[in-house]
């Protein structure tokens, strides 16, 4: 297990694609890991206090990581616990393992996720489980669970996997979705634009695009793309 604690207040953001794998390395290698501090390439221990306790694949990020980007990028297994807020692109392209964020997450949480689990105790921002610009497919597998609220652009171009938001969300839920499921316990804005498949369940208020057919099973559409996506209130 590896515990990292920021040494200073960062004047610009830090970019560090660290995964639980790091916890299995030798301490020297960990300390010398190259990360980006703006355009400066620095060592991990220049910016973080590092404590290694055994070899299991666990990363504890102790403190405010809201200015640290790309945590958990592409990780395949193990666990990351962030005892605070985390920066953008957390869990991007994740394939397996688990990330727990005790504070808030920033934009692009779980972007293009392929497996694994992300739990946010606080709020998430925009572009949750989405595809990067120009890519055709977003999240394909895995689970994202948000206790608080989320922003706009949720699960766009999703092909599989699950997103669940206990609080409210913004606009553009499941735009161009093809598969998978999104569940929102609170209210949200525009839902279902160009939806082809998959399922969205909403408990609170929402604004459906005017291109869905009402059936006994809920709303089916988007007719503009001959879609068979389902939207239900629960």
């Amino acid at each position: 297990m590896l515990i990292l604690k920021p040494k200073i207040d960062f004047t610009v953001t830090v970019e560090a694609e660290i995964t639980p794998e790091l916890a299995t390395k030798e301490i020297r290698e960990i300390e010398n890991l190259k990360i980006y501090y703006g355009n400066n390439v620095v060592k991990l221990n220049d910016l973080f206090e590092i404590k290694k306790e055994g070899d299991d694949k666990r990363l504890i990020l102790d403190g405010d990581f809201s200015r640290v980007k790309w945590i958990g990028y592409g990780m395949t297994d193990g666990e990351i616990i962030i005892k605070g807020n985390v920066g953008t692109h957390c869990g991007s392209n994740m394939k397996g393992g688990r990330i727990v964020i005790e504070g808030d997450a920033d934009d692009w949480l779980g972007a293009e996720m392929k497996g694994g689990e992300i739990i946010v105790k606080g709020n998430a921002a925009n572009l949750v489980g989405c595809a990067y610009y120009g890519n055709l497919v977003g999240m394909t597998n895995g689970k994202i669970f948000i206790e608080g609220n989320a922003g706009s652009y949720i699960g766009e171009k999703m092909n599989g996997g699950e997103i669940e938001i206990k609080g409210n969300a913004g606009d553009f839920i499941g735009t161009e979705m093809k598969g998978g499921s999104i569940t929102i316990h609170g209210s949200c804005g525009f839902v279902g634009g160009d939806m082809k498949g998959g399922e969205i369940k909403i408990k609170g208020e929402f604004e459906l695009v005017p291109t869905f057919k009402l059936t006994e099973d809920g709303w089916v559409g988007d007719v503009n793309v001959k879609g068979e996506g389902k939207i239900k209130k629960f």
Partner: protein
Amino acid sequence: MHMLHIKNGIVIDPKNKISKEKMDIFVKNGKIVSEDEIKKDECKVIDATNKLVVAGGVDMHAHIAGSKINTGRTMRPEEMRVVRTIANKFRATVGRVLLTSPAIGYEYIKMGYTSAFEAAQPPIGALHTHEELDSIPMVDKAALPVFGNWHFVLKFVQENNLEKLKTFIAWALERTKGFGVKVVNPGGVEAWMYGGNVKNLDDQVPSFNVTPREIILSLIKATEELNLNHSVHIHCNNLGIPGNYQTTIETIKLAKGFENDKRQVLHVTHVQFNAYAGDSWRNVSSGVEEIAKTVNAMDNVTIDVGQPIFGHATAMTGDAPFQFTLHKLLGAKWSNKDSEVEGGAGIVPLVYLPKNPVHALQWAIGLELGLLVDSNKVVVTTDYPNGGPFTEYPYIMTMLMSKKMREAELQKVSPYVQKASSLPSIDTEKTLDEIVHMTRSLPARILGLPNKGHLGIGADADIAIYNFNPLEVDPSNDFEIIYRSLKSAMYTIKDGKILAKDGEIVQEHWGKTYWVDATGKVDLESISNEIEEYFGYYSVEVRNYGVEEEWIKRPERIVI
């Protein structure tokens, strides 16, 4: 006074009939000179012992600069995210198949190509095209403005006024600082302004009393009477439609009766996209056999291949109606740009998959063209980025030289190719000399550039040295070695300077921009009324239209 001595290279220089001879090449002040013009002890020496030495490659048709390409980049960050080199002494370069301007220059030069020609320039956007060309380092370049749907052209053809058409061509080349007469789906793009297209050479172009046949013939006549250095360069009607090979043959035959002792009178481009037989995507097959027969029997027509390379590509042409058809077929994103009363363009992303029967057939057709058409009449291109990257020219070159390599590749593609194309049964293996001709001396001759594509005295010192011995290596069997060597030149020399070494950039350099000035052969005043009248339909003033030489970094004017 910069001098080079390239020692003991094995030279292939088809224009000067040199075939695998061990000889020295001397360079002074950016030109190839004879030995008595240099002082051996003051030369920088390059030891090319037992290595292939040829002229730098000439890419006569690629989409490398202008609003089409830039809109392609803008709409495809998925392409631009691939990082090639990180900024250090030289620029960062990014791009998968679409590339940034610095990347284009660096990638050509690393491969041993030293000249590249922008295939289609929208005339009103000429200044943008030149800005982008001037952001491409290393290579010499030029751009071809597009004429086949320009209202001035349609008007003069309709009036049967050859003199005014000639005058207009000279005026247009001067204003756009363009290189030659490019024609794209003549009449068809004007028809697209009404939602349509043209289907055969005798369809009437909406609002005009002209047909594609008349447009093409008039432009050939005018180009020949002006005796421009490059011939009419045509992207045929009906591109991308099964059965279109017949339109291509009819178009090629329009060259009959014209004669030019220096070059072809018609260059037909990316013929692969216009070589389909059958009548639907279900029964499409290769129409190359008849096209090759026709081209081989004529001595005044040349073509280039337009080879698809498996992987990503972006379809971008001035053939706006075709691009819309492709958008509907693929369900992919689509950009379009109708341009004043001049023409249009369209952009659609694509992928060529080896197991897809149609893509595999297109791939086979490109290779058939390279194999069946006389080596003196066919140039290697991918119609970059329509067929794929220009960095895979070495793939095409080695495939044309090796039946064994083709057999291995045929195993990986859709079996549809076995019945729809004759590629599996073609035994032809082009020689290295022929391949050098098809990538150097032939395109230079087609373009009318006497100082390019060869290593004779007086030629520009654009030289590529490759790390293999053509006397020992057997293209039929050693295709891996040749492919790797051709991808990354041992030395690329441009204007006598070493710009790349073993696939690394050594020095940055800015090439020349060629343009053709035929104004001396016409009386520009004779069309001033028509220009003034028609500019009422433009959205800019005629005084602000066009590019001045001072705005181009290194303009090189070719006076006709």
